[in-house]
């Protein structure tokens, strides 16, 4: 498992640098703007009161925009779960299936490594990669914090990273589970990504339509604290997110342990196109060789 973990982490260097740098710069930018927001606080609050509730519904913390918690909630922590969620869904869905579909896993699994070691080696690399990105994001918030007048401590800024980590792991493991259950990796990534975006939209829509509230209350973003975690962490919500992740990871592991490894698109979706859409290609042969 150690060899696979090391290798997977090495492969994820680009992701850590790319996503980490992006998250870092986004944090620096948002925190640096805070001093100017604070200085025009009264005018801004008046302006915001004029905004329609449909718009305000999508930005938690808008009613308290000039406080550090409200500002970060609106400008930073409301977007971060969707930004990092996209990373997590993609990384989770590709964790094993991408190499499997390319045929790379066929040779790797002929080495003396058990399927569970392969699974945990890669999954732990995914966890560490996610932590690395969050660490960069936290550094982006912390560095300009004092100079911008935000006045939050390193610990206060670190606390919301935990619910963010919970969301990342939740969606990452969901993508991973789908990739193990569905016959095509791309489909699982797209499906998990669509659910992520739908859940994000549900935050605002449920404020506008109370019929959607029960649905929102069982969705992962309901258990995401956002900037409220700066003051106090809701461990129960975090535990629910992690429990969901554990369930998805468990299902993915069981499926990976039990099923055949595929090569060259074996087991892919078998759509039968109408005749006029076919371009005269030979029918796909099921490989038994």
């Amino acid at each position, binding site marked *: 498992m150690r*060899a*696979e973990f*090391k*290798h997977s982490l090495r*492969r994820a260097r680009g992701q850590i640098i790319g996503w980490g740098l992006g998250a870092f710069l986004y944090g620096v930018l948002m925190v640096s703007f805070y001093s100017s927001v604070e200085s025009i606080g009264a005018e801004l609050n008046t302006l915001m009161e004029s905004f329609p509730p449909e718009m305000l519904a999508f930005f938690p913390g808008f009613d308290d925009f000039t406080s550090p918690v409200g500002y970060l909630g609106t400008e930073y922590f409301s977007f971060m779960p969707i930004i990092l969620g996209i990373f997590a869904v993609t990384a989770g869905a590709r964790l094993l299936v991408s190499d499997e579909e*390319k*045929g*790379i896993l*066929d*040779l*790797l*699994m*002929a*080495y*003396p*490594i*058990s*399927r569970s070691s392969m699974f945990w080696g890669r999954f732990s690399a995914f966890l560490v990669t996610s932590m690395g990105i969050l660490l960069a994001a936290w550094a982006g918030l912390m560095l300009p914090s004092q100079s911008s007048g935000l006045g939050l401590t390193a610990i206060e800024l670190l606390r919301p990273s935990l619910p963010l980590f919970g969301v990342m792991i939740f969606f990452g493991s969901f993508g991973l589970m789908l990739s193990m259950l569905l016959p095509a990796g791309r489909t699982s990534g797209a499906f998990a990504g669509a659910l992520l975006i739908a859940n994000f939209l549900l935050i605002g829509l449920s404020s506008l339509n109370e019929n959607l509230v029960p649905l929102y209350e069982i969705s992962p973003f309901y258990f995401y604290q956002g900037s409220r975690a700066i003051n106090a962490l809701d461990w129960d919500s975090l535990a629910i997110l992690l429990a969901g992740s554990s369930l998805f990871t468990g299902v993915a592991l069981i499926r990976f342990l*039990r099923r*055949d*490894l595929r*090569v*060259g698109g*074996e087991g892919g979706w078998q759509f039968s196109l109408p005749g006029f859409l076919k371009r005269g290609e030979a029918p796909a*042969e*099921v*490989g*038994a*060789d």
Partner: protein
Amino acid sequence: MDESFAIKTRGLIKNYGSVRALRGVDLEVSRGEVFGFLGPNGAGKTTAIRCMLDLIRPQGGLIRILGFNPQEDPVRVREKVGYVPGELSLESNLKVKSQLRYYNDLRGNKAEWDYVRQLAERLELDLSRSIKNLSKGNKQKIGVVQALMSKPELLLMDEPTSGLDPLMQQEVYRLLREASAKGATVFFSSHIINEVEALADRVAIIREGVIVEEAEPSKLVSMAMRRFHVRFKESVDLDPLSRLEGVTLLGRSNGMEAMLNVEGEMDFLIKALAAFPVSDIEIERTSLEEIFLAYYAEDKEEAKKNAS
């Protein structure tokens, strides 16, 4: 635990949905043997090899690899096996050396790096090159090196010389013979009759998921027909040639040329041709695919007889 065989399968069954890939494969490969596994595309060669490594799970039957059941002890089996897949895929963003180091890490750094260098030199594989810039043949060399580098007890190789030029094919044959001489068992699938003839102690032919023949390669080679293209100095009567046992006259050109198919020994044809004014002879050996087709034809004839 039966350890006398390197590979033993009994009634191995593997289905992909409604496709019956293996329909009861029985194989016994002794330790130290070089065994050729032959069959047309889709016959079940790769499926059988992948079952042996627990990459896929059979629905029925028994497999023992070096005495171990790969479904129960996959890691112990893989510790002793070097594998070349039929369609080799590598991480294109790595250099050859990094890819081989990663494989070696997965095996607990069992391979000696000096030996890896030796293998690479013999196959003219540049370890410092990026995989994405390599040709198919050079990638295949990585497949061969990674399989051999830990000096495994059993080599499972699915078309190991695919994409290699003839010189490199010969070098791979030498490496496999050397491994065999040191006690390793070599189990390889192939489409190339010369490869089978050069390497295998014994061969099995698989067709539609069933072993249809197990034989010495010499028997297989003798089963392979030869095609004679004979040119004569003057027009001759070809009837005496066409009446020879095992000889089929495929074509003639005004008695000046003849195309003959010869099955089995060719001594009698050579002697018969000595009585003719021959100006030139070209002899072509039929391919393994044609032998497979011959098996199909025999089976179809049997099926017709049974039906009638």
